[in-house]
């Protein structure tokens, strides 16, 4: 210890009055700003780092929500350094969340600066999501069981339901822009005797969720009709402009009007819902819809949509969606849910897309879109409102539907499909439903319903 009898800092002129905003002792103050604690890596096994990153994201979200600028800045600095967009899957996942948090902070804070963000992530922001051509989308969707699982299970259930019908009306509400239809047409063509007339109706997308298409639905429709013709299936195609944001009300209206015609013709009505229904607002987003029956119930567009479906008396409804809960109004809960689900697509991508490939960029850009939507948006702009299987099952039952099992043949078909992909994919049966798994975690569920 060195001592020098030298003056250091000269003092101020006046005695400083007690500063009202400061706590009493410096120790208290230091305690008020500890670095957020979290579990030691060694207690977390192989998920150590991921868990730490999740914790940092959680603390950061908390700091942003509580306007704790200092802590938020420090954690953002750390995250910026450890979550490289070119790193391993955990790092890239964390990077996606980091960007989303920054986007959120940019909206809520005092900041003027989209330009600053743009500077920071200049190249990244240029990943405006790719617009797929049909070929690109078809092969993109085939890369992984993520959608193929739902396609295969749904097609099997639908095919069974169509036995004996001469006219089939398929309403395809699908995130993948009818990419399920070619294989369905194929099955119809090969397995159904005297293939029925197929009427295909889609809700023309008025919103833009990824994956985005670079052609119009009309063009898409004519390609599908041609394809069907090549399989000797006569198909009519129709687009009804309708939006998930109002529960597809225009579509429902149209379908209602066709009820009478359908009853006369003995038409089958198939409603194929593939990862689209979760965009319909649910109860946590009040839709302002007046509830005629009871003023106490909080009726959402989602509930009303399912009721309306039931009113159409469909032959079969297939409901496929991602098995996670993104509906919490609490940012931190939502973040945890999303982080603990979206690690899966980042984890799987190494098995089917090489680094640096364009498709991989598209894939991860679409993921970042979802993450940003869940984390940095609120209100009607936050459209990624996933609900877990249990919730959907409950909803369908409430809407007077009864679940039907997938046949053994269907399950076999799905398993065969999974064999074409990496070993981590699996299938499990839960009651009547089937669930796609990755390393044992639930990914996508498929359910089939008939009017109860």
């Amino acid at each position, binding site marked *: 210890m060195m001592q020098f009898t030298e003056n250091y800092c000269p003092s101020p002129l006046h005695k400083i009055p007690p500063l009202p905003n400061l706590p009493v002792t*410096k120790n208290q103050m230091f305690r008020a*700003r500890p670095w957020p604690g979290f579990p030691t890596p060694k207690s977390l096994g192989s998920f150590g780092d991921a868990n730490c990153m999740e914790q940092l994201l959680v603390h950061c979200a908390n700091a942003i929500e509580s306007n704790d600028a200092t802590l938020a800045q420090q954690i*953002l600095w750390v995250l910026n350094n*450890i979550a490289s967009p070119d790193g391993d899957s955990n790092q890239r996942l964390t990077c996606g969340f980091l960007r989303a948090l920054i986007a959120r902070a940019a909206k809520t804070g005092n900041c003027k600066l989209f330009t600053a963000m743009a500077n920071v992530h200049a190249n990244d922001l240029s990943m405006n999501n790719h617009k797929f051509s049909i070929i690109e989308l078809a092969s993109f969707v085939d890369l992984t069981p993520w959608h193929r699982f739902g396609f295969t299970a749904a097609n099997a259930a639908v095919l069974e339901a169509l036995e004996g019908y001469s006219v089939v009306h398929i309403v395809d509400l699908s995130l993948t822009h009818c990419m399920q239809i070619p294989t369905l047409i194929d099955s119809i063509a090969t397995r159904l005797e005297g293939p029925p007339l197929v009427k295909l109706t889609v809700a023309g997308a008025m919103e833009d969720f990824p994956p985005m298409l670079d052609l119009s639905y009309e063009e898409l429709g004519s390609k599908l009709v041609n394809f069907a013709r090549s399989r000797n299936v006569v198909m009519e195609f129709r687009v009804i402009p309708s939006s998930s944001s109002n529960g597809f009300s225009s579509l429902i209206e149209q379908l209602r009007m066709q009820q009478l015609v359908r009853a006369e013709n003995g038409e089958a009505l198939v409603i194929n819902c593939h990862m689209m229904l979760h965009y319909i607002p649910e109860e946590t987003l009040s839709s302002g819809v007046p509830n005629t029956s009871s003023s106490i119930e909080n009726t959402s567009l989602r509930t009303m949509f399912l009721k309306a479906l039931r009113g159409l008396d469909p032959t079969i409804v297939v409901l496929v969606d991602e098995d996670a809960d993104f509906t919490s109004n609490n940012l931190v809960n939502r973040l945890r849910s999303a982080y603990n689900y979206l690690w899966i697509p980042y984890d799987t991508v190494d098995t089917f897309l090489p680094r640096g490939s364009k498709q991989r960029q598209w894939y991860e850009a679409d993921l970042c879109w979802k993450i940003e939507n869940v984390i940095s948006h609120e209100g009607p702009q936050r459209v990624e409102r996933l609900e877990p299987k249990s919730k959907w099952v409950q909803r369908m039952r409430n809407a007077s539907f009864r679940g039907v099992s997938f046949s053994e043949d269907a399950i076999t078909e799905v398993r065969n499909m999974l064999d074409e992909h990496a070993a981590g994919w699996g299938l499990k049966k839960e009651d009547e439903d089937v669930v796609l798994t990755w390393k044992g975690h639930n990914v996508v569920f498929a359910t089939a319903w008939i009017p109860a």
Partner: protein
Amino acid sequence: MKRDRDRGKAEAAVSGGTASVGKAKMLAEQQQQPDAGMDELFAVLGYKVKSSDMADVAEKLEQLEMAMGTTMEDGVSVLSTDTVHYNPSDLSGWVESMLSELSNSCSFESMIPSQIGISGESSCSRPGQQDGGKIIYDDDLRAIPGGAIFSNNLKDVVDASENGNKRMRASAGSEFLENGSPMAMAAEAARPVVVVDSQETGVRLVHTLMACAEAVQQENMKLADALVKHVGILAVSQIGAMRKVATYFAEALARKIYKIYPQDSLESSYSDVLQMHFYETAPYLKFAHFTANQAILEAFAGATRVHVVDFSLKQGMQWPALMQALALRAGGPPAFRLTGIGPPQPDNTDALQEVGWKLAQLAETIGVEFEFRGFVANSLADLDANMLDIRPSNVETVAVNSVFELHRLLARPGAINKVLNSIKAMNPKILTVVEQEANHNGDVFLDRFNEALHYYSTMFDSLESSGLTPANSHDLGRQICDVVAYDGPERVERHETLAQWRARMRSAGFDPVHLGSNAFKQASMLLALFAGGDGYRVEENDGCLMLGWHTRPLIATSAWRLAAAE
């Protein structure tokens, strides 16, 4: 400024349009007249002016002000949106056009121009001229003794703190007002006039401060005393940052004049508390830490054992983020050693160990092997590299970190070189230096004063936008006092500019390490999200980063390594 008998000449000169009457000529003419009834106060400011004349002109000015005030109330703020620059020698022409733009309410048009012609002349003197012992001013802060023309910079000093409606934003307008202000001030002395426009007072305030500093420079303590008291009066009319700046500078000047240097020292722990508060509310320290940490983190890439020598540990707020980033870096964390240096505590507590212990707890939580050592020293020059137990470079990678510390060493001859040599002996991979971006170490008191006035005005202005608190301003007030009132080894706030530090570091045998674009982007992003004021700017300056308020850089981060051997 001319008196009536010279009006004719003045008018002729001014109506010529571009006639610029040199101050020398003016002075020559003034010297022809006897100094009867001169206002003493303004004599020092360069005006040879009769008090009675001043009253007259002041009255006219008031009328003009009222006319313009009326115009403003009507919603027409002609001048506040105009940014046309007028030739200062054509001031009367400008005033005439201004008056004609106003509504017909102006009834005294015929009277004013001649007066303005008079004042216009004196305003023609150019900045920086030397005449008869007047001081040449720093380029940055153009103020003429008598302060007729201000460059935009000085105007910013006043403007900066005053939001809301100002009657004259055009620089010509302020020239006019500023020009008018000494007259009005004399009018105050002669006849009580209540001046409502605080901008005008603000200008006069700065004006008077600088006049006072000049008096001190010339060792005219009687005059300085009078002026510093006047500052006190004027300061009362100000609010916010301007008031604080004026008050602190006036206090510092008073100390210098009366040679009062209080003995009681601020309790060190209290100052640490203030520092933490400062940390929370202003972006400067955070910027310093983020940018320095980024350089250190990158320098530590691939190292398995690292050692940070922190020249002023204080509460150790810089280190948790770095430790966390190291903990989660690809490949796992290095062993992290921290040596913290700090001043002795008046209450004999071991503040360094407390900080070290808290960081050790954090390290345990995040899984980083940690070692801490504290060194108490009054001055960095008291330490030698071999005291710090630096291990060889194949064993540990060293970073030396200095945030707002090196400038203190300039108070003692030889100290800075001793310390730079010690740093070299530590063989660091990187040396991070954050310093105030200003030259407060000039030999000439007046230069220091002006530089500091500009710097701290900007600093206070920026803090006002993010929430000026007693804590923030207290620390800055202490610095102001140091720069202005002290000298010799007691003056420790010897800030120097990045350019000066660069030269010093290079000649001491250090090469610059460029802070990468990563550091710049991060700093910009973090600042943008949370700065609480949209005037902050991050600038890159040849591999260094600067944080400033609007166009004025206020702190600079640079990084260094030992110069490559030949």
